[in-house]
């Protein structure tokens, strides 16, 4: 077992890792930038090393400084948290060659899953369903028509070199297809210099559902059920829950088995998340895999009773999976997480500055993961996650009621936060009924605009 672990991160996740280490009786080394001198991860770690100026590229992303900090403190392992260097295969490799254990999967797995196309192909080969499409560039109108007929309408035409919505068109029926292929090709050439486009089935109202997995170094993999993260703003998750109101016990078992088989085929080790889109008919499509602990891991912890960060550390130290989780693991109750972000809830502008009053809610079934405190300064250099408010209930209704009252009892003054937005979502009949998809927030904002225009 490790005697000392360096935490290559900041904020709430650095604190979360310190908690796990303290409970395992492992000493901790915090690293920090000059902007974080008075941060809580610096205070609660056994040792702390300043690794650079405020800019992340000079500090939390500075691989030589972090490795050097591990060397001078004698840390045997590095936990990367999420973000920063967590999914950087080069960092994982430098750790290995420096004789420091990287707490996460092997570098080649990080590398594979970081290349989204390759990951999709590999996962399809391992038996996971992927969004049906043209599997390559569509050359002609004729070819597009044939493929679209095969996968069924609507279809989305995307630029191969694409991103940011440019060169994208949704065709709802065959009569629209020819025009849209030409337009998308034209836009793709304008935006990316190449007219290459491909076709995919368009999922109009997808739900985002992901499976948590754990693997050991000996080829054993288990899943810990799913999380639903359909409440998003521009692909940033805002609210997560487990279990998903849209996944039955039967589906969980069937898809969970498929996920476990695919991960065994890869020899996946440590914690990871396999993300799917679910369409209106209940079909699942693999989209990507995250090879790290995720922000929303806490909801899985609440319904499984497992400490995922501790499991990560134990797995990295060579523990066998069968000694860490019971084979008859079942999800119990319901957990919700709201990401409280330092942003204006209307405009989503980041709101850095000093917190003048900070009161976190508590009571039965409430958990707050945060590194904020009264008089702390939220620096403008890093992401704006201020706190994760997690509630647990025997049922989804209880978890929602608990979240509503906990949001009411969460006081943050001095900066703007998204607490009012979460309060509105908790009151929304669609959210309460579990009618979710990734466009929920866009609709909510439209409704609000409509109200303010008429009212």
């Amino acid at each position, binding site marked *: 077992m490790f005697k000392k672990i360096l935490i290559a991160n900041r904020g709430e996740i650095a604190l979360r890792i310190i908690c796990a280490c303290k409970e395992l009786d492992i000493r901790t080394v915090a690293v920090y930038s000059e902007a974080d001198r008075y941060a809580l991860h610096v205070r609660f770690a056994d040792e702390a090393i300043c690794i650079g100026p405020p800019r992340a590229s000079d500090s939390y992303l500075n691989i030589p400084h972090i490795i050097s900090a591990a060397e*001078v403190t004698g840390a045997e392992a590095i936990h990367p948290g999420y973000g920063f260097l967590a999914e950087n295969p080069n960092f994982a490799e430098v750790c290995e060659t420096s004789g420091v254990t990287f707490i996460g999967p092997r570098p080649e797995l990080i590398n594979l899953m970081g290349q989204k196309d390759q990951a999709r192909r590999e996962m399809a080969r391992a038996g996971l369903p992927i969004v049906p499409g043209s599997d390559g560039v569509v050359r002609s109108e004729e070819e597009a028509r044939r493929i679209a007929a095969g996968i069924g309408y609507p279809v989305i035409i995307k630029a191969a070199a694409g991103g940011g919505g440019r060169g994208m068109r949704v065709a709802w029926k065959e009569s629209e297809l020819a025009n849209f292929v030409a337009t998308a090709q034209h836009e793709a050439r304008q935006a990316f210099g190449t007219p290459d486009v491909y076709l995919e089935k368009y999922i109009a109202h997808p739900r985002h559902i992901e499976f948590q997995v754990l693997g050991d170094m000996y080829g054993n993999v288990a899943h810990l059920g799913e999380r639903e993260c359909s409440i998003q703003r521009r692909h940033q998750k805002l609210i997560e829950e487990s279990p998903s109101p849209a996944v039955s016990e039967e589906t969980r078992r069937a898809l969970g088995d498929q996920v476990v088989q695919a991960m065994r085929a890869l020899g996946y080790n440590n914690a990871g998340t396999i993300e799917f889109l679910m369409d209106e008919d209940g079909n699942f499509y693999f989209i990507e895999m995250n090879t790290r602990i995720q922000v929303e891991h806490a909801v899985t912890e609440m319904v499984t009773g497992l400490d995922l960060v501790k499991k990560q550390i134990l797995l990295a130290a060579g523990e066998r999976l069968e000694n860490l989780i019971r084979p008859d693991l079942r999800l119990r109750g319901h957990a919700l997480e709201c990401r409280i972000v330092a942003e204006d809830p209307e405009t989503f502008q980041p709101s850095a500055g000093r917190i003048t009053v900070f009161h976190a809610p508590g009571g039965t079934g409430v958990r707050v993961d945060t590194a904020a405190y009264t008089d702390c300064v939220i620096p403008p250099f890093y992401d704006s996650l201020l706190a994760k408010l997690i509630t647990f209930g025997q049922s989804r209704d209880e978890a929602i009621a608990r979240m509503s009252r906990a949001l009411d009892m969460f006081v943050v003054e001095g900066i703007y936060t998204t607490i009012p937005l979460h309060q509105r979502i908790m009151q929304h009949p669609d959210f309460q009924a579990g009618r979710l998809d990734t466009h929920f927030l866009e609709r909510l904002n439209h409704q609000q605009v409509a109200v303010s225009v008429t009212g």
Partner: protein
Amino acid sequence: MPVKRKPDSAKPSARGAAADNFIPFEQIQALIDLLEERGLEEFELEREGIRIRIKRRGVAAPPPVFESYAPAAGNSPAVEASMGAETAAEAEAREDLHVVKSPIVGTFYSAARPDAPPFVKLGDTVDVGQVLCIIEAMKLMNEIEADVAGEVVRIYVENAQPVEYGESLFALRPLKRK
């Protein structure tokens, strides 16, 4: 309902001792003039509840909101570690010294080899570009050079001691410019 309030702009601190220790604008102006006059890069002073730091252009200074925060984490190792830097800054201000700080994290070596004499000792006069010490990071030996010419009047760290980013290594008394 939580109360939301936009922070007042440019207030040094909302409460506590800061108000009592408020430094008049003229004094700050005088400090800035002094920095200009003496060609100093940076000046830092900390007293109960207030911290003032003046820095000349070069490295982008963080926004002013960071300059006034109270050390809430009183007993943290990092704060203790930073005390050395504060003292160095005060000494620098009082005695017109130039402090050489570590640009990297690593292990400080005062000599090229264990049996070799140190690169510099107290009282030595160094030139710009002269090697002052070595900091080992990831098996690489990084030579740290003097960025001003002057007399070595303080050595803050001991041989083979780990140093963090920004830690004070040497204080130099710059040679008087004619």
